[in-house]
């Protein structure tokens, strides 16, 4: 047992070092490379999607609630952030609110506006959760999808113009370029900021999942009747999971708004929820690390790695099949292959662990396998004492 604990401690230390190295590496890259590089765009967007995918996984993978409202909660987050972080001078001028007089005369800093984005999304989730969470499986999915669509229509509605600027674009709020290192005028590295905020939020979700609440969520996912018989209040826990998930979807919506400089309700369509769902499924339903890895792969393929397929200059057999949009075809085929051959996603319902990585590399290289095995046996013997 002691040996096992020692190994666990060592692994935790490893993880901390790996995270620190990653963040420092990112900082160095951001300071030395051109900030307009596609790499940073992909990294930022991946991290934002990783957060919303993990929040969706909390619902779908850990609580067993098949909800498709994620884009709606991101919409609330993005709009809340944009409206509240927009400087008052811009709101009063004609550059954004051209056809309406903005009625929200409050300007907040970046972090307070982000928190408010999460809180608004959470409050809305709490309200719609009351009727919706009494539904099960597909019905829940349809109802949440419906609410997300209603939200989009509502935000584009003319009567909401004084708040949301109707169907027009919101811009000139505090985006990633407005980030400053506290008490100085030096810009804060934007990619690092996305990593820090998303990483912190994901860490909170992981802590929640490993707490006794998380165990109750998983119990509900596995067997509602048994969970209820153990005295777990089903509705209360479902509502809790739904509200927390929506809070983080709202935060990721705020990050998305910061990332893309403009926000428009038309962007938050059902298709966006499906993209997030795809990330969750490819990563593995019920795996946080899976969602993160899949998010990076998905965004990188979608925005970067398959770009060359769109360049019409290359011909195959004299046929000009490589035209813009072709990457989407290849991308769909790749997704189909993944779903067919890895039906449980990249990670299944397991998490990344150093132990598994060691086992994998051992299998891959086969070096000193026997020696390691002997070590393990002796450890097991000691562990039983």
């Amino acid at each position: 047992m002691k040996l096992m604990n020692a190994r666990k401690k060592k692994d935790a230390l490893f993880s901390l070092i790996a995270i620190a190295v990653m963040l420092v590496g990112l900082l160095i890259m951001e300071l030395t490379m051109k900030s307009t590089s596609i790499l940073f765009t992909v990294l930022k967007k991946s991290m934002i999607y990783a957060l919303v995918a993990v929040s969706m996984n909390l619902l779908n993978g850990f609580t067993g609630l098949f909800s498709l409202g994620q884009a709606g909660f991101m919409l609330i987050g993005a709009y809340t952030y944009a409206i509240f972080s927009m400087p008052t001078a811009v709101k009063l001028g004609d550059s954004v609110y051209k056809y309406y007089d903005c009625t929200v005369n409050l300007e907040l800093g970046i972090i307070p506006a982000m928190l408010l984005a999460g809180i608004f999304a959470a409050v809305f989730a709490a309200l719609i959760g009351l009727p919706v969470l009494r539904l099960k499986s597909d019905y829940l999915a349809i109802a949440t999808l419906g609410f997300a669509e209603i939200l989009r229509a509502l935000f584009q509605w003319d009567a909401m113009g004084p708040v949301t600027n109707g169907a027009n674009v919101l811009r000139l709020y505090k985006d990633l370029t407005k980030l400053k290192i506290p008490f100085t005028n030096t810009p804060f590295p934007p990619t690092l900021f996305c990593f820090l905020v998303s990483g912190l939020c994901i860490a909170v979700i992981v802590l929640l999942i490993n707490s006794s609440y998380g165990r109750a969520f998983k119990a509900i996912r596995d067997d509602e009747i048994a969970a209820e018989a153990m005295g777990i209040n089903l509705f209360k826990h479902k509502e809790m999971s739904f509200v927390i998930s929506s809070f983080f979807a709202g935060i990721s919506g705020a990050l998305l708004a910061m990332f893309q400089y403009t926000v428009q309700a038309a962007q938050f369509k059902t298709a966006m929820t499906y993209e997030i769902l795809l990330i969750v499924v490819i990563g593995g339903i019920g795996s946080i690390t899976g969602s993160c890895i899949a998010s990076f792969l998905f965004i990188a393929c979608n925005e970067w790695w398959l770009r060359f397929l769109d360049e019409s200059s290359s011909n195959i057999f004299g046929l000009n099949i490589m035209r813009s949009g072709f990457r989407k075809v290849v991308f769909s085929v790749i997704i189909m292959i993944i779903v067919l051959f890895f039906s449980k996603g990249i990670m299944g319902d397991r998490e990344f662990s150093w132990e598994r990585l060691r086992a994998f590399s051992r299998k891959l290289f086969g070096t000193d396998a026997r020696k390691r095995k002997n070590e393990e046996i002796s450890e097991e013997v000691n562990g039983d004492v």
Partner: protein
Amino acid sequence: MSEPILSIKDLKVNYGGIEAVKGISFDVDEGSIVTLIGANGAGKSSTLRTISGLVKPASGSIVFCGDDITGRDTGEIVRKGITLVPEGRRIFPNLTVQENLRVGAYLRGDDISEDVQWVYDLFPRLKERSWQAGGTLSGGEQQMLAVARALMSKPKLIMMDEPSLGLAPLVVRGIFDIIREINAQGVTVLLIEQNANMALKTADYAYVLETGRIGLSGAGHELLTNDEVKKAYLGS
């Protein structure tokens, strides 16, 4: 005999328009094993589900340790000391054995390590499998886990819904040995069974449910030799 720990008076339960339980009354004495036997659809499971608060009764009263618990929430009832082992085991298949046990103790705020040790002593097999996912256990082990999980809430009264369902005869005998063992350690047991033979041999007192009403009642060994019971439930 001592005071009844659980006292049911004139309990009626409806499902939709159907009367599943049509006014039954019975007592469970503290420290005893009491069984309800009866055919399919006699209302046994409905009775247990109503006592544990999963179903609300149409009328009647349920008094536990002197408190009226009729129509209370399951959480409150579990806190008071009644836990149900649901029919068909219903363990959490993707959680490890240990996690299953911790969910069983979900409502408790205190230290549970002593009770984990206690159930591992009762079921050494579970200790061997403590890091295994519940779904990978055999049927008998899953039933043990379901009982162990319920014991983790430290109940005064444990209710078991068909613990022998779908298990081999030898395993069933093991389960009944454990029921007696748990009872000997001071937990009152309310058991419902289709395996009337085993149930009557184990129980101190038994009630026979027939389509929502109590027909016969008596000490377990008495009913074993009762002609009516023999004909209807023991097949001889």
